[in-house]
């Protein structure tokens, strides 16, 4: 329907945007293998030298370990709370039901400094010292929505008749949940959890308000770039963080797209 010129223009535009989106990412990959410690283009040569040096850096290993623990705890909490909220909203009608979706989304819909600042002043006023616990609380709060969205999307796809059939055949609510509902939604719970992990692993803004003196991996990167120190190591760490978030997301994407066949859509 569109004229030939219009199609050509739109195609070219799409190509340009794709280049715009991916050239910076390609540059990150290239710089991680930079042989020199000078950050100029073109890079001096390819080398794996900085991977070894980065691993030898104790601060980086510490930060990595903290990030992994925070992400695991935050993911666990958000998987439980997000799934529970999704079940309640999907299966029950009650006053204020609409506002629950709103409340769940709020921590990521509001600008990051609002959530960070709110939690920070809350911890100061209630006298809670900043620790790994406060980082986890912050992350879990904005991860709930990721799991919630994933699980409720799957619940909406499920035919109600399946659980009704189970109940007609004598299964009570718990039995039906364990044997019928859970197997059909499990991939959505897992993929929601994976996305929550990726989100937590990469978060900076809220973390800076809740971490105190500790460094997660993104905080280490942020500090190093700001001070202009250890930039060759930053190149490597940035690539690693990217892989840490990208690979789980690809897994989760495959899961969500393969699952519906077995979930009886």
């Amino acid at each position: 329907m569109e004229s030939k010129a219009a199609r050509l223009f739109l195609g070219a535009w799409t190509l340009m945007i794709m280049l715009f989106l991916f050239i910076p990412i390609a540059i990150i990959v290239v710089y991680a293998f930079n042989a020199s410690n000078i950050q100029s283009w073109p890079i001096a040569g390819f080398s794996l030298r900085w991977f070894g040096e980065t691993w030898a850096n104790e601060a980086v290993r510490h930060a990595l370990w903290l990030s992994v623990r925070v992400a695991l705890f935050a993911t666990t909490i958000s998987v439980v709370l997000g799934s529970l909220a999704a079940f309640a909203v999907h299966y029950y009608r009650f006053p204020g039901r609409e506002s629950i979706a709103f409340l769940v989304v709020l921590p990521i819909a509001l600008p990051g400094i609002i959530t960070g600042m709110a939690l920070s002043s809350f911890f100061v006023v209630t006298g809670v010292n900043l620790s790994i616990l406060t980082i986890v609380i912050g992350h879990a709060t904005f991860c709930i929505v990721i799991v919630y969205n994933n699980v409720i999307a799957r619940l909406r796809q499920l035919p109600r008749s399946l659980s009704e059939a189970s109940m007609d055949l004598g299964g009570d609510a718990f039995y039906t949940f364990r044997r019928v509902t859970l197997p059909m939604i499990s991939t959505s719970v897992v993929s929601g959890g994976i996305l929550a992990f990726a989100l937590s692993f990469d978060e900076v803004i809220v973390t800076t308000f809740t971490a105190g003196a500790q460094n997660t991996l993104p905080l280490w990167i942020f500090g190093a770039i700001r001070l202009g120190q250890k930039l060759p190591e930053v190149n490597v760490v940035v690539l690693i963080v990217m892989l840490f978030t990208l690979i789980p997301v690809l897994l989760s994407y495959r899961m969500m797209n393969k699952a519906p066949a077995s979930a009886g859509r």
Partner: protein
Amino acid sequence: MALDKALPLGEPQQSPLRSLAIAVWRRPALGASALLAGPMGWLVLIYLAALATLFISAFWSVNDFTGEIVHSWTLDNFRQLVESSVYPHIALRTIGIAFAVTLTDIVLAFPLAYFMARIARPKLRAALFAMVLLPLWSSYLARVYAWRLILSHDGVLNWFLLELGLPRAHIGYTNWAMWIVFSYIWLPFMVMPIYAAIERIPGSFLEASQDLGGRGLRTLRKVILPLAMPGVIAGSIFTFSLTLGDYITPVLVGGPGSNFIGNVVFSNVGIANNIPFAAAFATVPLVVMAIYLFIARRLGAFEMM
């Protein structure tokens, strides 16, 4: 389901768990409250309480000598904000760049979304979909840092310009750099809702417009744009809000004079230890977003999210 694991035939089973299941079934309120207690407890007792604390502490002050928070009501923080020569400027810069980024992303995203929705074949469309979403999940810091490498004095951009025989550009560490980087980072948030809106437009509408003599651009202006508007607004909520609340990008690619609201808020929490003042300034993006969301809802943007 394997037969040996199926329920036994005959009389209904009796067990405490089963009695509980029956009780919950008869009283749905019980089931709903049991499910909601955890998530709502968390979000209300921690998150809403934190937001309330933020709002209230904006009306407190800090004792200059002891550094302790004084819990008595005052509007001093807001007075200080309005009367200062610096803070209104910072607020305007933040809001201005958030608008510029939003407009830029609309312009960049619209043709792409149109191509995805109406021209690309299913396979190409799926690939483009994945390619637009992928950067979103590949580490925020990595992508900001990449632009630092691109825009710096000896970076990729200047190398490219020199190769072409052009003079160096001095974009690094300026407001221009922030504008480019924010537009880059939040672009996927704009593409998705516009795509969803354009995809919903029935092809027959466009045929009808053309049958009635609407040439390409006229159809675009009179039919497609109005119908895609809710998608554009929905996307703009993300790009606007995310830019408004950011302070990492200004630190990493902005110059010394490119503070955002977030930078002032953060330095007042971390360094100056003046939480009431930081809270007062943080209410500015909160109010701006509240107004923005109110207008967006009137324009029907929430149906696109």
